[in-house]
Every structure is written in structure tokens, then in C-alpha cells.
């Protein structure tokens, strides 16, 4: 059993020099060495992350598909065996409860991978909206999750897989064994650098961690903490729930219009989101890049031609670009290339609106 607030791998993190921090109630490594070193290891080679804090909620029953279709704007109707899809749980007014990945486990059986901080909220939301006959089950205790990310990650995993897995495009998954260890192998991630996320029985996660560390040595695999995870996701412009996508924003406001499939029929918040798309949008998440050494941080104000233009929701220095980058909830009329200024401790610093990702998404590369 896990100790309260600790993942199965806690002792391994401490032994590896992890600087442990409380992340929404779970004790996780912020870093083992340096954030930038770990970030670049993922960008260039392989990083290994313990993301066992993520929650897994299963929805099953004959009404599972219409239920999920109603609560989310992305279309799940064509999701088949071995496929998963990014989506957003939405309230009736279109505001986001969480961003999730929906796995099609079997007919009438779906698994939702949810943010750790939102696990209880998501479960209550799902259970509170569930029709009779539908089962909502929090299975988080049954899964640890290791993210193996980077351009060489799939090469390493291919070496360890017991039966050749064949091509697997992004957002597909399969039950596989790695040197005898059963995993749910999912071609997903939060880094934009390629690789996979491995769901594993907590009893086997230490063995899987050790196997990956040992076999990954020759590829320069680096254990990585939450710090690198955050800078990597931000370079890709991926949302962090609670910062960019929030309880008071819709997916449209979060810049996730590509997730919203109006043609699929009724779903929570459809009319609100439709009105936003048709000219009623007052604010929208966009990317910006600094043109000097200033580092934008959450909460800082953004100005356009000396007028207030919104607020930074996530910001840091990009280890790859070596300049400040940020997502902000901004005036939606600001297009890429538009000059802006960020108020950093009382001084205006120049920047410009840019398209995300800030850093091109990387795919598998040959060693």
C-alpha cells in the first residue's frame, strides 16, 4: 500500500537525490539535478517521470458513451479499441471541470485519466450527473504511471517490449509487457518530445522504474521532476488546469477550439461556446514571447498600446529558447506578431504575441 501522500516510488526518488515537494497532496520530486538539465535531457534524449499522482476514473455501462458525449465537447463516437482522446469535462455553462484523456477500454467501458488535484471534484461531478445503471469508479489506487518522454524514448521501449508492438500513432494504447512487466502502453505525453506513458500495477512500478533506469543508461535517460515537466509543457503551449484552463473558463476561452466539435450534437455548454466562437469572445488564452530578459509570471498584467490586454496565466523562461514565454488570458483580437508589454514588478517589458507551440513538437528520432 502507498503511504499517505507518497507514491510507491517515494524511496527511489529520495535515494536518487530528488528534492521532494507537496504537489496537491502528493509528495513528488521537483527535480533531481537541475530543471534545465532535466528539461534538455527530455528534449534531446529521454526523461523518466513518476506521474502516479494522476487519477484514473472508469465509466462503464450501456449509457457510458452518451453520458460522456454530453459532458465533453470533443467527439468520442468514433473512438475505438486502442484509441484515446484529449477532452475537457464541462459544466452546463461550458466552464471546465478538468482536462482529461479518455481511453476506450472496451465497448461501454471508458477510462478517464484526470489531473491529481481534480480527482475528487471530477468523480463527484461524474457521479452527480450519472444516470442510473452507469458505474463511475475511481480506480486511481490500481495504477501507477510512468512517463517515458523524449525523441529516443520509443527506441528504448521497443528494446524492452517482449513482442514487437508494430506502429502506434499518437493517442493509441495497448496492453503490452516490458521484460515480463504488464503495462498499459499509451502513446501520449505532456512534453511534446515523443515517447509514451505507462500505466502499471503499483506492485510492479518499482521494478519498471528500475528496468527503465538501467536500460535507459546508454541513451542518457534522466529521471525528471515536476519542474521540467512544467517548462516542457509550457514550451508546447499545453494547458495546465488551474492556471490556463480553469473552473471559470470554457475550452473556447482556453484556446482549445480544436477540441470543440459543434457538429456532434448536444453537449454541456454548446450554446455558450457557439456564441463565443461567433464573436462573443472577450478573452482567450494566447502565447507570448518576451523580447528582452524579462520573465513573465502568472498574475502579471499585459498591455497592448498602453491599454490593459489581460493577465499571464503561466510563464517561465524557456530552457530551449532562453527567453521568457507565457500563456495569458488576453484580448482575443491580438493576433500573432502583435506587440505587447508585460508589467514585471512595475516596469513594462516588451514582448509579442506568438503562435504555440513555442518550440516545435519533436517526434521519434533514430539513435
Amino acid at each position: 500500500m502507498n503511504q499517505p501522500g507518497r507514491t510507491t516510488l517515494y524511496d527511489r526518488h529520495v535515494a536518487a537525490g530528488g528534492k521532494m515537494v507537496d504537489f496537491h497532496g502528493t509528495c513528488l520530486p521537483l527535480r533531481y539535478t537541475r530543471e534545465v538539465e532535466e528539461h534538455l535531457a527530455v528534449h534531446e534524449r529521454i526523461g523518466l517521470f513518476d506521474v502516479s499522482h494522476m487519477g484514473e476514473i472508469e465509466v462503464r455501462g450501456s449509457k457510458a458513451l452518451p453520458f460522456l458525449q454530453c459532458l465533453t465537447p470533443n467527439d468520442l463516437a468514433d473512438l475505438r479499441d486502442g484509441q484515446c482522446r484529449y477532452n475537457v469535462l464541462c459544466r452546463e455553462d461550458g466552464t471546465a471541470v478538468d482536462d482529461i484523456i479518455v481511453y476506450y477500454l472496451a465497448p461501454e467501458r471508458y477510462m478517464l485519466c484526470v489531473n491529481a488535484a481534480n480527482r475528487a471534484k471530477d468523480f463527484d461531478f461524474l457521479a452527480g450527473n450519472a444516470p442510473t445503471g452507469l458505474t463511475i469508479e475511481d480506480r486511481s489506487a490500481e495504477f501507477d504511471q510512468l512517463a517515458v518522454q523524449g525523441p529516443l524514448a520509443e527506441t528504448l521501449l521497443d528494446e524492452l517490449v517482449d513482442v514487437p508492438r508494430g506502429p502506434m500513432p499518437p493517442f493509441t494504447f495497448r496492453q503490452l509487457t516490458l521484460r515480463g512487466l504488464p503495462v498499459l502502453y499509451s502513446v501520449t505525453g505532456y512534453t511534446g518530445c515523443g515517447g509514451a506513458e505507462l500505466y502499471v500495477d503499483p506492485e510492479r512500478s518499482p521494478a519498471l522504474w528500475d528496468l527503465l533506469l538501467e536500460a535507459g543508461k546508454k541513451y542518457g535517460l534522466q529521471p525528471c521532476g515536476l519542474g521540467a515537466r512544467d517548462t516542457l509543457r509550457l514550451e508546447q503551449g499545453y494547458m495546465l488546469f488551474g492556471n490556463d484552463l480553469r473552473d471559470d473558463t470554457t475550452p473556447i476561452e482556453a484556446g482549445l477550439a480544436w477540441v470543440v466539435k459543434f457538429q456532434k450534437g448536444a453537449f454541456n455548454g454548446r450554446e455558450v461556446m457557439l456564441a463565443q466562437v461567433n464573436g462573443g469572445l472577450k478573452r482567450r488564452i494566447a502565447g507570448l514571447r518576451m523580447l528582452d530578459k524579462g520573465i513573465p509570471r502568472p498574475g502579471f498584467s499585459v498591455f497592448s498600446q498602453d491599454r490593459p490586454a489581460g493577465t499571464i496565466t503561466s510563464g517561465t523562461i524557456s530552457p530551449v529558447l532562453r527567453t521568457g514565454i507565457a500563456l495569458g488570458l488576453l484580448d482575443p483580437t491580438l493576433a500573432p506578431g502583435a506587440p505587447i508589454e508585460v508589467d514585471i514588478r512595475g516596469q513594462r517589458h516588451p514582448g509579442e504575441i506568438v503562435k504555440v507551440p513555442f518550440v516545435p513538437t519533436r517526434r521519434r528520432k533514430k539513435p
Partner: protein
Amino acid sequence: MSPEIPGELLYTKEHEWLREEGDFAVVGITAYAQDSLGDIVHVELPSKGTKFAKDTSFGVVESVKSVSDLYAPVSCSVIDVNDALLESPELLNEDPYGEAWLIRVKITDPEELGELLDATAYETLLEEMAE
């Protein structure tokens, strides 16, 4: 592994160090501070001639994850600034007691030096924080 605490320096509870040089002093951040912050990516320092009261903010140090104020260990006026840090903030991670000094100051009130921690007291502070 405990961070380095040179015996000849004075320290603050905010993890700055001060090297006394007669009426003058050099100020920096401790090895513990740089290790806690992680990768230091940006430093803001005052202009020469600026005066600071003890415990007021004279600058900012930013790591990948955080922004931290720098506090004057004693009341002082700034006579020199380590401009190299503006181009190479990572020096603070590499050599916090040497090349990565922050400012050189003229001490306004030498009696305030008595309020600073010596190396033994600073070590005790770090031990207490670790508990």
C-alpha cells in the same frame, strides 16, 4: 550533503552572506540559497549609489520556478554591482561565494553587523530548517 558555509563570512536568515572589508562589505547569496532555488536564470541588481535600509529589498533573483527578493543585510549604499551576473546568472549556481558576488557596499551603520549570524549560527539555522 550539507551546503558550504565559509567561516569568515556573516549571514542573514534570508540566506545572504556578507564579507566585511573595513567600512565596506561584499554581499551575495549562500550555497543553500542557490541550491534551494535551482537553476538561476535572471538577476536584477540596483544602480551604484542607491541606498538601502537594513532588510529592505535591493534586487531580485529568479529561478526557473520562482522569484525571490534580495534583502540588504545592513543599511548601506551601493558602490559596485556585479554586472557579469546580468549576462550569466548561472554563476550564482556555480560559485555563490566567489565570482557570483552581488553588490559591494559602504556600510552605513557598522553596529548592525552585530545583528548578523556567524557561520556557526547560520549552520544551526539550516539544521533547524531541515528538521
